[in-house]
């Protein structure tokens, strides 16, 4: 009952998406938009087009299978409910990303998928390995996400909108812009980390710490495909340039080979499958990089086909584990007799993965070869890479989908037994779908692949999928690939290969960086949080002054006129008193004298207020000076005798800092007074003071009437500051006090 309710969510979504196939295939785009941050032009908007629909179908369909499967796989698990919550949240985040109609909507959901996958990978949180893998995935994809955010912001700045529909129409503008390369690199960083492209490939196999249903979902339909989705989505905007071609084909090619080779070096079923996922993601990146209509068609088809066979293989791997107790291929063999349905699903999926006639994988591989033979640049090199990768994939497919089930029972210690329906049906359905697509490729091509390709290419592209193209070079390549793959598979069982990761892996770099981080943080803390007030002061004032200086010297274009020295004698005398007070405060070696000298400075300033007709200010200044001197004396007479603790060097440094602050403040004031005052404001207050504020004292009327809200804020701050001082001084004084 609970399971039915649970399945109702993804199934109803899937059903709705299926109903949209017709309208979307006819070229419609469904859109919905909700106001989110209207002042920034950001909307929570969604659009359903061919590309989004293909992904949405995979996400909701495979999601439903995974939920069904997990209900048996995690049967009796104490956190089964939590698992369902995570998976559904993950599904929602994925759907949000692929259906987003706004750059920022896309980014928010993109990051949510990262968070959800963190929870899912770390599902067995008692195990350290799980936690580490989850953390690694979050760090790597999160760092990429930040790069993506930067790219998105730049992109929306250039185009002047974050609406995806507008962005997708602005390809020419973006590609010819100076910032094109930075945007491309930033967005690629986001895409490559998410889909585990070299050199960020290492997090994905680590994510195998997740329960098998999660791996199946993560690897087939969801998160790792998001990077591919991003590349496909922005292909009309960013694609078609040399840098796009070079970046994607090189990285894709390296990832393709690296993943395929590593897959053959593993003995754990899930690890083998994980590395072939890396390899498949490399293929997809390579194809999108080629950028021809043929390559895009191959990419979209391969994407769907891969999702089907990979989900099936992962789910069978879990069933094998469940039914026989191990995932180690050196111990497995011949268990298919005990679990025929699982063996059928695994076998079909493996054949599709190997690209065998008449399965969907065959069509995808044919297209793949055709696209590589017609690559816009160095087709022979590309084809060679693809050939090598495909041959290795064939061998890996045999390892994962043939070896465990067929032949004789290798390890008699295993007692494989039948698994229940909920474990064999979910892998069988996508495997059968692969067969179905193989028989009706044209229908699948026109309904799902063509609308998606049209969005990737930015224009309608004729898509004709067929199982049989006649005898041609591509077919020949396919046959040679199968032969080579079979040979590799045979060879693989003969020779012993190293199974541990080498020290030249980029994962080592990640660990190095991670280990260096606490040291770096410690260094920052030592500089910024060292507990010494004088350094805090120096940092704060230094930063403020530096910022002010930069603003002052870069933004002010008008020259500052040196004011003419035309003061009267008593003004000069006052200035002299202030100066000598300040000088005295720095030179004296008695604290009391220093305080008194500061008092002289304060009174001098108050005197200036009087001379320039501001009695209110002067009066307040006199009171403040008196009180602060009293406070100073109260604090100072508790301190030990004055002693010169600081060295000459630090005194010199303090002098430089003080002079810097003083000079900048002087320049600032100078600049301010050299600007013409806006007389209208003060005149308005002068005029309005008596009639509107019932007072002749303009200053006070402004304080308590015109800008009373400001004053209210300020006195609130004062009250809070008083509480702070009270809280800081009180516990200390009460400790040694009366009680």
């Amino acid at each position, binding site marked *: 009952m609970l399971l039915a309710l649970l399945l109702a969510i993804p199934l109803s979504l899937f059903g709705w998406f299926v109903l949209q196939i017709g309208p979307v295939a006819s070229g419609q785009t469904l859109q919905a938009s909700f106001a989110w941050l209207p002042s920034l032009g950001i909307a929570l908007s969604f659009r359903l087009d061919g590309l989004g629909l293909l992904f949405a179908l995979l996400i909701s369909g495979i999601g439903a299978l995974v939920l069904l499967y997990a209900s048996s796989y995690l049967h009796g698990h104490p956190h089964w409910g939590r698992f369902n919550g995570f998976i559904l949240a993950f599904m929602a985040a994925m759907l949000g990303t692929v259906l987003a109609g706004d750059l920022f909507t896309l980014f928010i959901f993109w990051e949510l998928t990262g968070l959800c996958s963190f929870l899912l990978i770390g599902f067995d949180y008692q195990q350290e390995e799980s936690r580490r893998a989850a953390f690694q995935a979050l760090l790597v994809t999160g760092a990429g996400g930040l790069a993506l955010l930067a790219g998105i912001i730049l992109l929306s700045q250039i185009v002047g909108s974050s609406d995806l529909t507008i962005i997708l129409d602005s390809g020419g503008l973006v590609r010819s812009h100076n910032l094109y390369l930075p945007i491309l690199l930033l967005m690629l960083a986001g895409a490559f980390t998410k889909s585990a492209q070299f050199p960020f490939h290492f997090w994905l196999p680590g994510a195998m710490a997740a329960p098998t249903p999660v791996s199946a979902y993560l690897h087939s339909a969801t998160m790792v495909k998001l990077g591919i989705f991003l590349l496909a989505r922005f292909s009309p905007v960013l694609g078609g340039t040399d840098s796009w071609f070079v970046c994607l084909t090189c990285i894709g090619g390296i990832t393709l080979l690296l993943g395929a080779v590593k897959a053959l070096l593993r003995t754990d079923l899930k690890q083998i499958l994980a590395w072939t996922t890396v390899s498949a993601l490399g293929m997809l990146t390579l194809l999108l990089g080629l950028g021809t209509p043929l390559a895009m068609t191959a990419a979209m088809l391969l994407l769907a086909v891969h999702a089907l066979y990979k989900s099936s293989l992962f789910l069978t791997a879990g069933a094998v584990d469940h039914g026989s107790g191990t995932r180690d291929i050196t111990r497995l063999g011949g268990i298919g007799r005990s679990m025929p349905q699982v063996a059928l699903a695994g076998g079909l999926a493996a054949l599709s993965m190997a690209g065998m006639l008449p399965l969907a994988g065959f069509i995808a591989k044919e297209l793949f070869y055709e696209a590589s033979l017609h690559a816009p640049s160095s087709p022979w090199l590309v084809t060679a890479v693809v050939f090598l990768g495909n041959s290795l994939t064939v061998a890996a497919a045999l390892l994962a989908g043939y070896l465990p089930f067929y032949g004789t029972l290798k390890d008699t210690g295993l007692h494989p037994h039948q698994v229940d329906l909920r474990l064999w049906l979910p892998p069988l359905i996508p495997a059968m779908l692969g067969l179905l697509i193989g028989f009706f490729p044209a229908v699948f091509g026109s309904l799902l692949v063509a609308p998606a390709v049209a969005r990737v290419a930015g224009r309608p592209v004729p898509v004709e999928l067929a199982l049989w193209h006649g005898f041609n070079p591509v077919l020949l390549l396919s046959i040679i690939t199968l032969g080579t793959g079979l040979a590799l598979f045979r060879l693989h069982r003969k020779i012993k290969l190293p199974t541990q990761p080498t020290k030249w892996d980029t994962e080592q770099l990640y660990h190095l960086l991670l280990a260096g981080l606490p040291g770096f943080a410690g260094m920052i803390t030592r500089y910024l949080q060292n507990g010494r007030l004088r350094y805090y002061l120096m940092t704060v004032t230094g930063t403020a002054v530096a910022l002010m200086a930069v603003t002052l010297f870069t933004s002010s274009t008008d020259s500052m006129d040196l004011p003419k020295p035309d003061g009267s004698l008593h003004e000069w005398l006052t200035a002299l008193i202030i100066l000598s007070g300040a000088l005295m405060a720095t030179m004296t070696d008695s604290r009391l004298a220093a305080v008194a000298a500061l008092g002289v400075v304060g009174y001098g300033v108050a005197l200036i207020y009087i001379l320039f007709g501001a*009695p209110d200010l002067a009066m307040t200044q006199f*009171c403040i000076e*008196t009180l602060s001197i009293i*406070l100073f004396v109260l604090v100072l007479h508790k301190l030990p005798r004055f002693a010169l603790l600081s060295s000459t060097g630090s005194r010199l440094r303090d002098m430089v800092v003080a002079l810097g602050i003083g000079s900048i403040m002087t320049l600032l004031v100078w600049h301010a007074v050299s600007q013409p005052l806006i007389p209208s404001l003060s005149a308005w207050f002068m005029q309005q003071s008596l009639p509107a504020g019932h*007072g002749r004292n303009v200053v006070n009327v402004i304080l308590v009437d015109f800008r*009373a*809200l400001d004053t209210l804020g300020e006195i609130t701050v004062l009250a809070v500051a008083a509480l702070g001082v009270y809280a800081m001084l009180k516990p200390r*004084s009460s400790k040694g006090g009366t009680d």
Partner: protein
Amino acid sequence: MHSLILATAIRLLLPLMLLFSLFLLLRGHNEPGGGFVGGLVVAAAFALYTLAHGEKEGRRMLRIAPLQLVATGLLIALASGLLPLLAGLPFLTALWSSVPAPVIGHAGTPLLFDLGVYLLVAGMSLLIIFTLMEEN
């Protein structure tokens, strides 16, 4: 620190200074003065008294805890802003009585607001001064 001169003088000065501070507060709307400076004068008066007679005596003379002064001041200022709301006017709109009062002249909410500032500033300064002097 005990000074006979200061101790004697402040007994006479304290009421004068308090009176002066009230004068500053009330006339502030038309002449130099106001709540802020008035509050500072109150604080100075009690600070001098406390210097001469000690912290306990100072607190006794003030009769009300400084923290309560701060709170009362803030509440009065806030209330002066809330009053116009009752009359359906925006927050902090000034209300004035039409009949002039004997000493103050026109009475109105800005004066109430100023009184709040006055109490708060005096309370805050005295809070710090008393706390600092406590240990002696």
